[in-house]
């Protein structure tokens, strides 16, 4: 029991994933700044921001909302993200081999933070938050279908293996999935889907600073907002790791493989940051159309290509 709690809260769960996520958030801010001719913050800036938000800033509660749901939602979202982090990171770090079907469980766990953000936004009773929540619901309905199709594709490519550990082992012996045309097609689709899951431009319409003034997170402040931020940091870390695991030949922390593993994850992260910096925000209708039609078609094309054998 103590071991499980250690896994969940310290390593590789909440604390570890969060700290790496904060460093990733710094990388995001720094790369963005350099792309935009700015200097960018020092490495510890996101830590300072987070600690200040968590411990110093006042938490203001909405007058017309449901306070219990408003405060419970971020916590549940954090737990969902942490559970996903544990399942994603343990096989990569060689701590356990996972269990059969964990990739299916991940699909559900990765949806929990977003659903909880929606619950929190609706509980706040703010009209802008409710518009943000309705946008987020539409986003979830759009990208989750593509996401499950991508996972199905990965399972097909790995000869019906439902275990993350074995998917990685298979790629190490037979070559990464991205080495085939179908793999490339599905990797591109997956990249777009995690962009939406992480809520980054061009799919940040639920927050949409200049339209809804942070939308779903508008009423959050202080500690509650710090927890949301922390959840987002964890997602920013585990989503690239997940993509690297299922497409880029898996992660393996041994000898020279440590370097390759880190480079793979950073590659996905940098791709996400560059997409974010070279696109304006889409409208919600356009984003739905984009996922439901084009990305789904892309994934199905990938599946067909896999059947043909390329």
């Amino acid at each position: 029991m103590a071991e499980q709690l250690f896994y969940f809260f310290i390593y590789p769960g909440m604390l570890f994933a969060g700290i790496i996520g904060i460093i990733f958030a710094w990388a995001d801010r720094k790369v963005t700044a350099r792309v935009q001719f700015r200097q960018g913050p020092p490495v510890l800036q996101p830590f300072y921001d987070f600690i200040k938000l968590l411990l110093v800033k006042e938490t203001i509660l909405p007058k017309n909302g449901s306070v219990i749901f408003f405060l419970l939602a971020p916590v549940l979202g954090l737990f969902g993200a942490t559970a996903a982090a544990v399942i994603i990171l343990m096989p990569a770090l060689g701590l356990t081999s996972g269990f059969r079907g964990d990739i299916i469980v991940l699909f559900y766990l990765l949806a929990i933070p977003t659903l909880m953000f929606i619950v929190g936004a609706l509980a706040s009773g703010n009209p802008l938050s409710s518009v943000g929540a309705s946008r987020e619901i539409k986003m979830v309905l759009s990208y989750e279908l593509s996401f499950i199709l991508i996972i199905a594709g990965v399972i097909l490519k790995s000869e019906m293996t439902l275990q993350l550990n074995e998917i990685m082992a298979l790629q190490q012996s037979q070559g990464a999935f991205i080495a085939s045309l179908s793999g490339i097609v599905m990797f591109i689709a997956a990249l777009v889907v995690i962009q939406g899951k992480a809520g980054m431009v061009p799919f940040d319409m639920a927050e949409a600073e200049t339209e809804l003034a942070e939308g779903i997170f508008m009423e959050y402040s202080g500690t509650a907002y710090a927890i949301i931020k922390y959840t987002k940091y964890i997602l920013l870390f585990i989503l690239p790791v997940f993509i690297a695991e299922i497409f880029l030949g898996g992660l393996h922390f041994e000898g020279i493989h440590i370097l390759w593993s880190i480079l793979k994850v950073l590659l996905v992260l940098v791709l996400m940051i560059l997409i974010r910096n070279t696109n304006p925000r889409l409208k919600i209708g356009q984003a739905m159309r984009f996922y439901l039609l084009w990305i789904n078609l892309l994934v199905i094309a990938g599946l067909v290509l896999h059947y043909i054998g390329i």
Partner: protein
Amino acid sequence: MSKQKIIPIGPYHPLQEEPEYFKLYCEGEKVVDVEWETGYNHRGIEKLAEEKTFEQVFFLVERICGICSTSHPFAFANSLEEISKVEIPDRAKYIRCIIGELERIHSHLLWVGLAGHFLGYDTVFMWAWKYREPVLDLFEIISGNRNSYAMFTAGGVRRDIEQSKFAKIRQDLSELKKKVDLLTGAVMDDPVIHARTKNVGVMTREDIIDYAALGPTARASGVAIDVRKDDPYAAYGSLDWNVITAEEGDVFAKAKVRLLEMYESIKIIEQSLEKMEKIPEGDILTTIWEIPEGIGMGHAEAPRGEVFHFVKTDGTNSPVRHKIRAPSYMNIATFKKSCVGQTISDAAISLAAVDPCYCCTERMAVACDHTSGKQILDGEALIKRSQDKTREIKNKVK
């Protein structure tokens, strides 16, 4: 029938930094009505102008707006020169054109950046503002100030542009042209920007005429209205340049008009420099000793449209009445047409597309009773309220 709810943009909102309040009445994401409230930042400039001398009013009107800080003195100078019927020296005319056009370039670059920001495209925001820096540096070289240039006075300009600076100005302009090329390419060819701005906030030719919209807002709908061509002032009549128009009337057309206008501005500045080389340095001011009694109307094409100044004088050294109308006053009214029926996302960019300037547009707000239309609070009541509030806070601190 779903319930209407109000999505507020303002009084303080990250969309636009100035205090203004748009009530978007929405059904779901669709905007069904727009209401605009202002009066949060009224400064009483017209009244203040009546208490200052003509020389001082130039500095006052320069501070109406931070971005188009030359168009107001420009229009005011035109109105004073109409009253006193003087012809200003040629060199001063060209200097006025140069300042006015440099301001247009920096204002349009600023708008392109802001439009990018409103679309969530912060890279365009930062790049456009980075490219705006050399323009501000040019202003510093010419006038000593990066903003609020204090170049204008009745009868001419206050500072000459020396011949020795021409090479630097020309070089900076040619570099600026390359950067504008890059920015234009990035905006015009981006498919996602097309998806976000085409057929959004469309104003037809008839709408523009009905609402009497001005400047790039009107020109983007095919109405070729430009004071510089229609009633040339300063040296605009003797220079070779074109009025840029587009037919579509959507946000993309407005962006296109602004981007292409920058090239025309560069053209005007280059021609002015060329002509100035033939005129000896120093001849920049026809001194006006006395402004006679009369009525003067001056206008100037600001980056956002026509700025209009009406001045009435009685022979003393300050205006009796000074009326200012900035272009945003006409342009903001078009929101009723361009935003209704759109989604919130489209409404936000449609609001930004006319490049509204609220500090130019501020009017006094009067609180009236809804049914009787009677004024609820007058000046004295407001002062009393503020004193009561101060007393209350003081008691609390004690």
